[in-house]
């Protein structure tokens, strides 16, 4: 049975009678227990893809088309009450900013309990015990004390752990984490990524990890989806993508990351910047910045083609 299959997902917004498609025809698939990394720069549509899977896009006025098959259900056609029972229980979401996603006037422990009791029939006492257990599992020091604190009393790393606890405590099948470590220091980022690695593998939870940091992806993922300006440009197994990327954008993205021991002058940049959602060029959306541009690229949108092994690429070069 399919675990998660996204087919031809598009999101359209209408602004002043002008239509904008920040996500256009994205398709990918996830197996149970797999870790998929979605990478791309600002405005590539990573977060919107995640929000569409969570069924949150209509709330901000987006028109979603395509299909999102989760188990035997299509998340885009089920009723909103059915979606409500899946959201938080079977699919959990860890939002981008731990600083603003916790309610400032409730104790953090109670916020974890609320998530449990929304989806499971459980006494307050049992829910509290479960909360303390998960806090301990996530290496939160002195859980009983932290349980009683308010978000502003906690450091960024601890707040992020609480948000992760809320996501994990209902034992979801799929966890979607949207830039979970962007706001954190490197040493804390390493701690959090280690937690993700330990907990998703141990409980066989599938993880959809959204990030702009290719280093983070390399440490934890099985597969990578590279997005650019609302399109999926390359998708496949992590070793192929990092070892032998086909798409010029993936190649360029890897070459712009400074690494230890890199010789000065070896860093390459991509000219220009990611276009705004309202002003995407015709044809391949990357053609304005691509070094291998052909005339075909300006008019025709490339489709995903299967190239070497486990890798799909959308580029006219191949």
């Amino acid at each position: 049975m399919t675990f998660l299959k996204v087919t031809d997902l598009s999101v359209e917004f209408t602004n002043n009678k002008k239509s904008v498609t920040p996500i256009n025809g994205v398709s990918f698939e996830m197996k149970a227990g797999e870790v998929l990394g979605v990478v791309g720069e600002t405005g590539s549509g990573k977060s919107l893809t995640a929000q569409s899977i969570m069924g949150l896009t209509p709330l901000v006025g987006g028109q979603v088309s395509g299909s999102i098959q989760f188990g035997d259900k299509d998340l885009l056609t089920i009723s909103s009450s059915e979606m409500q029972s899946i959201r938080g229980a079977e699919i959990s979401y860890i939002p981008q900013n731990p600083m603003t996603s916790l309610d400032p006037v409730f104790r953090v422990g109670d916020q974890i309990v609320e998530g449990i009791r929304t989806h499971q029939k459980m006494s307050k006492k049992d829910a509290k015990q479960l909360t303390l257990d998960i806090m301990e599992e996530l290496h939160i020091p002195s859980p009983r004390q932290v349980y009683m604190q308010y978000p502003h009393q906690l450091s960024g790393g601890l707040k992020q752990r609480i948000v992760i606890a809320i996501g994990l405590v209902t034992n979801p099948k799929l966890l979607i984490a949207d830039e979970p470590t962007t706001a954190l220091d490197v040493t804390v980022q390493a701690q959090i990524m280690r937690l993700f690695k330990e907990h998703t593998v141990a409980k066989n939870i599938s993880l959809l990890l959204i990030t702009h940091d290719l280093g983070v992806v390399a440490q934890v993922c099985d597969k990578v989806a590279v997005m650019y300006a609302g399109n999926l440009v390359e998708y496949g197994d992590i070793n192929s993508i990092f070892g032998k990327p086909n798409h010029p954008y993936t190649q360029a993205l890897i070459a712009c990351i400074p690494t230890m021991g890199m010789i000065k002058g070896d860093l390459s940049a991509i000219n220009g910047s990611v276009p705004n959602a309202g002003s995407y060029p015709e044809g391949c959306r990357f053609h304005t910045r691509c070094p291998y541009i052909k005339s075909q690229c300006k008019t025709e949108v490339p489709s995903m083609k299967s190239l070497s092994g486990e890798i799909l690429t959308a580029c006219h070069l191949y």
Partner: protein
Amino acid sequence: MDNIVEVDNLSVSFDVRGGLLLRKIGSVQAVNNVSFSIRRGEVLGVVGESGCGKSTLARLILRLIEPSSGKIRFNGNDILKLSKNELRKQRRHMQMVFQDPFSVMDPLYTVFRSLNEAFKINGIIHTPEERLSTINGLLEMVNLSPLHGHSYPHQLSGGQKQRADIARALALSPEFLVLDEPTAALDVSVQAQVIKLLDELKEKMNLTFLFISHDLSLVSYFCDRIIVMYLGNIMEILPADAVSKKPCHPYTKALTDNIFSTIPNKENSIPVLEGEVPTPFNLPPGCVFASRCNKVKSLCHEEAPLLRDVPEGGQVACHYPLFDISS
């Protein structure tokens, strides 16, 4: 090689006030007894986690905040002794590029007007024609077209704004530039553009940079020497190529271990430095890193280590460095 900036025993502490009457309830030592020098023509990097005092240090060097004690010499002049007027004259030679390009430019001014401001205030280049050609030249130098001069900041992308801000900093041909996380708000592809641009400008205009960042791999790529800070103290000063090969301080080693490379590595566990940066409020005596260090011994809790020379170049403040530095 001569030194453009020399910093001696520089400290600054901020009072923390609390309670009903906002009485002083303690103080935070943001920068603690820091000494180093910047050689003419080099790129000196400062790395550390948030709250380690790197931005405070940058502002101190330009005397944007007053230190509690210590000395700063710029081109041999003690800038802490300068009067307001003399300081303004010196500021032409030392400029700063800020972290957030979105809030640094006046939203009601065009880029041209923002740049023109510098010439007006300093009373140089009087004719409008000359100013126009100088500003267009500046914009071209940072890979913007003269047309961008007519844009307002909100019409520019993040990378363009950061380049406009670099043009602003370079307008008066300074010798020394402090770059405070100039790429932290940018995408990697744009970060690479800005880094390449800075490198070109440095060669073209014989600049010296103090480059502040939390990204150790970026710093080790771009800088010649690196200062590693933790809670207001210098832990280690080392040549950039020693960061990966021979870090002497356990904290530098922990930072290098936490750089995620782009080599797929799903199977192996991620090495972790436990704990978080403690609050800088009323620190215990001894080494500030002692609470997180895995090499900690009893001496570390009693006595703060001083910076000692490393034979291969650099200095380290640790009682038990990872490599022998006795020779």
